[in-house]
């Protein structure tokens, strides 16, 4: 896309200044959407991971929970290095864009589907308080001798639960960061947005020493689902050789289209077999 754009600019010569301005606007809009999507997705996933780590820490011991979380981060970093780096360096850019678009489409569509069902009352809202309470109850009832406020003992269950929670939620963050970052040649920026989310969620989590149930996860997931789906369609098209009208400016247009689709779907499904609002049911590590 950039190569085509540069060639066009050279061909038009004097129109280059105007063209550069247009291209700059395109990059700015797609960069803003990239940062928002990565930051939003990372915030949601990190809040979910934090809930599980805090539940494991409170019920089984902080040492094991923190070690489990740290081990998951290390495994994720290893996977990125082993799988991600060669993928970026050795796979042709168009193929990479199709792969990236496919991943974003699968993730985005499943986030959007859940958001539609939740907003229309056909699926329980994601509730960190309920997930936290259930996880703590399960962890404590599984072992009558589980320490209530341990800080120094090692505990295999606490380690495993924290590891699984951070690994599952972290995998989504890694996929989103690597795919959005590499497809737009903004891997550093995408990683920075994810790191900012991690620092903010981690700091607030440490300060309040609990899960962050006040974060509007359902709304963020809805917005991020729209962004991921829009990026997914865009990159699948670009990778396959489709030249979108307006180039990168097609991304916000696609996002607007999916907002309309979502709004229509929610309105229609609300009229279908109206049900009382579903109680929030904990889904532990459901993405």
């Amino acid at each position, binding site marked *: 896309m950039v190569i085509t754009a540069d060639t066009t600019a050279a061909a038009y010569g004097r129109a280059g200044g105007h063209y550069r301005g247009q291209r700059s606007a395109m990059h700015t809009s797609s960069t803003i959407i990239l940062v928002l999507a990565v930051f939003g997705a990372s915030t949601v996933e990190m809040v979910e991971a934090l809930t599980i780590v805090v539940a494991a820490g409170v019920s089984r011991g902080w040492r094991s929970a923190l070690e489990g979380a740290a081990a998951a981060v290390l495994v994720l970093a290893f996977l990125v290095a082993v799988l991600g780096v060669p993928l970026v360096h050795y796979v042709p850019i168009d193929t990479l864009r*199709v792969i990236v*678009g*496919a*991943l974003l*489409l*699968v993730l985005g*569509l*499943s986030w*959007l*589907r859940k958001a*539609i*069902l939740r907003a*229309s009352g*056909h*699926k329980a809202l994601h509730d960190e308080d309920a997930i936290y309470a259930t996880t703590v109850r399960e962890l404590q009832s599984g072992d009558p001798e589980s320490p209530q406020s341990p800080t120094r003992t090692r505990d295999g269950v606490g380690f495993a639960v924290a590891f699984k929670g951070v690994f*599952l939620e972290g*995998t989504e963050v890694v996929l989103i960061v690597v795919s959005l970052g590499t497809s737009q040649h903004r891997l550093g920026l995408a990683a920075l947005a994810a790191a900012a989310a991690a620092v903010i969620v981690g700091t607030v989590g440490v300060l309040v020493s609990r899960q962050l149930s006040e974060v509007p996860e359902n709304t963020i997931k809805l917005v991020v689902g729209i962004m991921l*789906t829009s990026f*997914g*369609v865009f990159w*699948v*098209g670009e*990778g*396959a*050789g*489709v*030249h*979108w*009208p307006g180039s990168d400016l*097609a991304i916000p247009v*696609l996002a607007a*289209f*999916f907002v309309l*689709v979502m709004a229509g*779907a929610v309105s229609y*499904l609300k009229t*279908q*077999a109206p*049900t009382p609002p579903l109680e929030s049911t904990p889904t532990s590590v459901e*993405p």
Partner: protein
Amino acid sequence: MKQRIRDALKAFGHFWVDFLIGDTPEFALATLVIIGLALLLRHHRLAATIVLPGLTAAFLLASAYRGRRRSAD
């Protein structure tokens, strides 16, 4: 040792299948169809611009409708 490696690879594969497909296999199918159509329509800009987002929306709506029916059952 070989068995252990095989089991680990199998578990790794299961994890990714569950992670990417899970209980919505229609999205994996949708993605393959959209990639196929994008390749077919790459020289037809207008058609691709309409068909790709339209088909994505159609798969999303069908899946949400199916989810509604499933939760109503």
